């Protein structure tokens, strides 16, 4: 029995003051983490905007094909994975364990495809000569901001893939409940949401003219 469920148990038995948000502690902590992490991404994007505005020769290297097509594909996959995550959470809520696990694993698979496409894109960029400290087109910070922002996001995707796998396995073995699927679903949607800021700011602003 976890601490979080102690709190819930206490609440159920009326021995404790009700939580103002009426959600389990674990879910509250996930929401708090999301707030904090959103601020972290906000700081990264602020730094990006700051140096981008300060650079007169900011490069616009992204061609519609292949770069933007690839990004659209990645976006489609990530948004779809949010949908499959929703399906998994719905099944977990109704107690359909095998379906919840199956859809979580599908989400994981989509996350892996996203990561693979992203790494392929990175390799392409590196092949064109983009480095954190230089690139063939202009302001040297282009590579630094591109790799650090998309890298941080990729790290979150990979972290989410690992976490969802572990949670689904433990859910299958009965150590975790459907709540845990939902809590990590929140995280997954957040990673998706961050991407919705990364795409316009990092890619679409820098489309070749």
């Amino acid at each position: 029995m976890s601490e979080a469920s102690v709190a819930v148990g206490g609440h159920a038995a009326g021995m404790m003051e009700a939580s103002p948000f009426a959600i389990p502690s674990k879910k509250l902590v996930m929401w708090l983490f999301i707030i904090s992490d959103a601020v972290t991404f906000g700081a990264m994007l602020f730094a990006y905007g700051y140096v981008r505005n300060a650079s007169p020769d900011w490069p616009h290297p992204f061609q519609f094909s292949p770069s933007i097509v690839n990004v659209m594909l990645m976006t489609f996959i990530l948004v779809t994975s949010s949908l499959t995550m929703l399906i998994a959470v719905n099944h977990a809520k109704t107690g359909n364990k095998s379906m919840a696990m199956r859809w979580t694993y599908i989400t994981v698979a989509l996350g892996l495809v996203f990561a693979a496409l992203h790494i392929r894109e990175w390799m392409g960029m590196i092949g064109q000569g983009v480095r954190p400290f230089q690139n063939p087109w202009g302001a040297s910070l282009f590579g630094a901001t591109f790799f650090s922002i998309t890298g941080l996001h990729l790290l979150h995707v990979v972290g989410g893939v690992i976490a969802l796998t572990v949670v689904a396995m433990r859910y299958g073995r009965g150590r975790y409940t459907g709540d845990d699927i939902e809590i990590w679903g929140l995280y997954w949607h957040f990673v998706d949401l961050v991407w919705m800021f990364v795409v316009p700011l990092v890619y679409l602003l820098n489309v070749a003219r």
Partner: protein
Amino acid sequence: MSEVSSHAVQHQAPTGFIRKHVFSLDHKVIGKQYYALALVAVVTGMMLSWLMRIHLVWPNAPIPGLHFLSKAGAPGNVMTPEFYLSLMTMHGTLMVFFVLTNAPFAAFGNYFLPIQIGAEDMAFPRFNMMSFWTTFLAFVVLMAAFFVPDGPPIAGWTAYAPLSAVGGDAGPGEALGQTLWGVSIFIFCIASLLGALNFIATTLDLRAKGMTLMRMPICTWAWFITSCISLLAFAVLMPACLLLILDRVAGTSFFIPSNLVISDRLQPHSGGSPLLWQHLFWFFGHPEVYIAILPAMGIVSHILINSMRKPLLSAKVIIYCMMGIGFMSYMVWGHHMFVSGMNPFSSLAFSFPTLMITIPATLMTLIWLGSLYGSKLRITAASLFALGFLSMFVSGGVSGFFLAQPAIDIYLHATYFVVGHFHMVMGVAAIFGVFAGTYFWFPKMTGHMMSESLGKLHFWGTFIGTYCIFMPFHYLGLAGNVRRYSAFTDDFLVPLIPLHKFITYAALFTGAVQLIFLFNLVYSRFKGAPAPDNPWECTSLEWTMPSPPPFDNFGGKHPVVYHDPYQYGMTNAAGGDYIMQTSPEASPTGD
């Protein structure tokens, strides 16, 4: 979040030494660990400040044994100007992160927040243990800078770029030392974020029956608001450190402009902005000031109410003021940057909220002073330090009004005026809160009373000593004495050297007085008189349990709370002048 420990049935304390004292999940042990770490850090930081003070007034005098600390930094035991800056950087970093953040917030918060709300532990004990050991790792990484070849960094605790970003060309300590600094603070951010998540979840979810939010003691509120501030502040410092480390090891140039020549070498960087570091750093740095001071405000309010034997004029207003300060702390960071070359219109925009934030701070001070008026204060070491806090907060806060205005700040910014200001209002005031908390809660934490007479002696020595150190700083600053200079022997500041000597003597004296405190701490721990359950006749939940509290706090029971913690100045059933929060008897005030 594999929080699948058997905590619910963990009513038996662990018996092994490692589980009990080292990797303990018990919030009380973790609180003491934070306190011990802060103690080590504060002693180290204070000794560094003595070395700096001695060097300032006798710049060519050898300090015996100094070359053990750094061969290059002290040839023939004489401190080099660069090594002075290294010591200053380490002093600031240790004090701000490992003392002012750890002692009032993490140490006392860990120990007393769960108890004061009637919980048997934090919401996530395993997270809690990780927070401490991650903090400890950050401390080890920082201290490692003393042992690398080029020594600790020289960029100050604010690590201003480009000095902090370009690497070894910028001077001693800027090669590996500064990288260790960045890594250490990055790790510290992770630890603080973990801690903040845990504090918030605990406060919201684990309150005993009847402990509504408004019935929580003011210090619980302060820890809660502080954790909300840390949750957002450290979330910005963390990526800032990441970018700084990238600049240093991956060749990026976030904080390094083009065409920068340092040590006769054109730096291979282009396009970055040193101002960006200042923006990111101070977006964290200003809330950090309140992370240090809010818990002290809470602790002091708690102790004052108890010593006055009557409630504050308004506890609610104090709580709302702390919330207001917490919220506004994110809108004022630019007042650290008036002289940075930032657009002067931005200075105006940051000056206004900076003056606004003095309103809740002033309101709180007025409530404390107004409540003290006419009260029969019980004079103890704890209440003396609480009064000392008020004095320091007012004295240090008043100079804040000057610094908030760009026109005045431009003259004062890089002088000792600022050093005096923040040492009093953030450093000494917060430390006084910690001292007050220590004298107040030591009986509960150890089961032994501290010596009151030694405590009062310690107070008067520290109070007079710190005023003698930091009040003259303001005068030095007005006289144009710049900060961060390692010596003033050959310029217009020579006439100020006698005053500097006085300050150095005062610093050594104040440091010596702290030995009384350390002695009191160790002696009372073993030989102090046994502490009763409630020696101060206080109303909050920690005083309902034995001293020291048992492993599971309330013996597996959930306490029930009937009152707010301000039930003083009436007659209870047993003839006392207070009603415990857990006492079911009716209160005349109806709360």
